[in-house]
């Protein structure tokens, strides 16, 4: 292992997760902190914390030049970007290369190809892997209408530069299309600086299934099975589980093989996730997009495979071959992750920043809590609302559910509102227990029953 000091360009639970992985490997961790995070738990656990700017992410965590300067100034060998912020900015990867810093993640070209959803679709299509029926780029409302009529309504308008559930609009009929198109293009231009739009057929009763992969610099690629992230609200994941309750051995092999082929085709390095839409009626899957970073929900994969993905990321970035071959990776049991956010479920999931008066996290066999919070911690309004990832592992799905229910009941957070009550509600729902859900289920069914 060639690394001795890693610069962590992130905050919150993932910063802490990376710092601890570094320490496990005997590597020092230097952390970038904004003014708001100077006293944070990751700042205390890091070997050194450097204040890089004011609380606003635009002037601190999102500044490539500052991150590079701080990493060089602290004599780090590598930068770990975590997820969000600069994790999928090819400019950071290029700047690392220019200054002889190792970027713990894929090559800039991988990020560029997969970040352009049109390019990614086209590339995956050439491999004979199904992509959702859709259009090329549509330049006008008129073109959009023609493409949509060919596909059949409802359709989704998607920004080519979008992803992660951002830049998507649903259109039910031709009448709304021109207006929605202009709106979507305008929003895409503002959000991504790229107003290219394409159209996809909307697949009703779909699940979101993704495959964790990892590649090394020698060209080896392995997968770590799938995660089911169908429980979403406004395209944002709320609860994830692994393995997917609807997978058969045959389907699993097919979907994992497709993910590995995509990664191998582009010579992908480091951790990545290939996302698929699974049509439950047709029992077919379609490529959705590939995320070129470690993801929030990686712990459930770690729980069922026993592999520390963040440590493996650091190791392959240092030039080591993957520590395991595909046959060495097996899965056992079932894991569930609930994202505990500082939001009020009873008030349309309004953000609920503020001081946490009391924080008592559950513990015990099969329970894992990834969090940077503690009693007295002030949840700042500047960043995302993720407080903790509560993960349960059981011998099977029902065991994992039982453990998760108990863990939620014994998770005490006072002073701010959290999504704990809503997760508890999900975990007692009959349809959820039966696995009878889809990506629209929370919004279309559960939230109505919940009284929203």
């Amino acid at each position, binding site marked *: 292992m060639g690394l001795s000091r890693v610069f962590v360009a992130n905050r919150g639970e993932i910063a802490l997760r990376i710092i601890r992985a570094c320490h*496990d490997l005997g590597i020092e961790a230097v952390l970038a902190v904004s003014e708001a995070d*100077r006293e944070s738990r990751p700042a205390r656990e890091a070997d050194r914390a450097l*204040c*890089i700017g004011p609380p606003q992410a635009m002037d601190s965590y999102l500044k490539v030049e500052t991150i590079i*300067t701080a990493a060089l100034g602290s004599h780090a060998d590598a930068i770990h970007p975590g997820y969000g912020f600069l994790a999928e900015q090819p400019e950071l990867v290029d700047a690392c290369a220019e200054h002889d810093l190792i970027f713990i993640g894929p090559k800039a070209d991988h990020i560029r190809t997969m970040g352009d959803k049109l390019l990614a679709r086209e590339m995956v299509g050439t491999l004979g892997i199904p992509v959702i029926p859709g259009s090329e780029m549509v330049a006008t409302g008129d073109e959009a209408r023609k493409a949509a009529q060919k596909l059949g309504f409802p359709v989704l308008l998607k920004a080519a530069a979008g992803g992660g559930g951002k830049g998507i609009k649903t259109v039910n009929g031709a009448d709304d299309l021109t207006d929605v198109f202009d709106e979507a293009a305008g929003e895409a231009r503002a959000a991504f600086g790229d107003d290219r739009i394409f159209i996809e057929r909307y697949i009703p009763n779909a699940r979101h299934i993704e495959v964790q992969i990892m590649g090394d610099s020698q060209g080896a690629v392995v997968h770590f099975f799938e995660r089911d992230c169908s429980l979403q609200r406004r395209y944002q994941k709320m609860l994830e589980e692994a393995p997917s309750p609807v997978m058969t051995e045959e389907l699993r092999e097919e979907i994992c093989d497709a993910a590995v082929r995509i990664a191998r085709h582009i010579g992908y390095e480091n951790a990545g996730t290939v996302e698929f839409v699974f049509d439950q009626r047709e029992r077919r899957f379609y490529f959705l997009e590939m995320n070129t970073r470690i993801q929030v929900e990686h712990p459930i994969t770690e729980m069922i495979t026993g592999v520390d993905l963040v440590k493996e990321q650091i190791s392959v970035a240092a030039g080591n071959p993957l520590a395991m071959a595909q046959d060495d990776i097996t899965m056992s049991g079932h894991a569930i992750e609930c994202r505990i956010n500082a939001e009020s479920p009873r008030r349309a999931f309004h953000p609920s920043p503020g001081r946490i008066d009391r924080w008592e996290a559950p513990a015990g066999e099969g329970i894992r809590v990834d969090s940077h919070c503690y009693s007295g911690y002030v949840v700042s309004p500047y960043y995302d609302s993720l407080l903790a990832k509560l993960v349960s592992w059981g011998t099977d799905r029902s065991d994992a559910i039982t453990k998760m229910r108990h863990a939620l009941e014994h998770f005490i957070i006072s002073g701010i509102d959290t999504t704990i009550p809503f997760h508890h509600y999900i975990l007692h729902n009959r349809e959820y227990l039966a696995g009878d859900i889809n990506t629209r289920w929370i919004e279309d069914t559960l939230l109505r029953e919940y009284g929203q």
Partner: protein
Amino acid sequence: METLTQDDVFLILKLIEESKYDELHLEMGDLRLDVKKQGGRASVVDTQGIPEGSAGTPPPAVFPEDAPHTGVADDVETTEDDSGLIPIKASMLGTFYRAPKPGAPPFVEVGRDITVDDTVCIIEVMKLFNTVKAGVNGRVARICASDGEMVEYQQTLFLVEEAEGRDEEKRKSA
């Protein structure tokens, strides 16, 4: 296993304090000792050893209470002791330069009178040189960062003895 006694550590601290070096990094087998000198006094900022039993899970780094950890706010806090002195702080993280170019005389020295618009230093961020203005009228009382050092956002760079009468003006304008 090789190890260091407390006396050894004190000896190392004393040697560093008297030397011209600012930092010492020592690794002996599983033991790591990082010593850094700040403001002329050496202190242990990071000692880390691998525990006896549980290989692979080192204990958290030890930070003695009086040792600067982040290196932030250390200088800022001293402003309270230097009552009346006004800090000039770094507006960004970057490399601190006291002179416009290598070999040139520094922008300011201790004892120099400065006015609001005087350039006092440069902060470089990836070849981008940002001049820092005094923002205060007065006399430079102390220079808190050394040339070529990386400074953090809001780190105190200079302490200035404010010119007489300025306080009142400031109050009026505020």
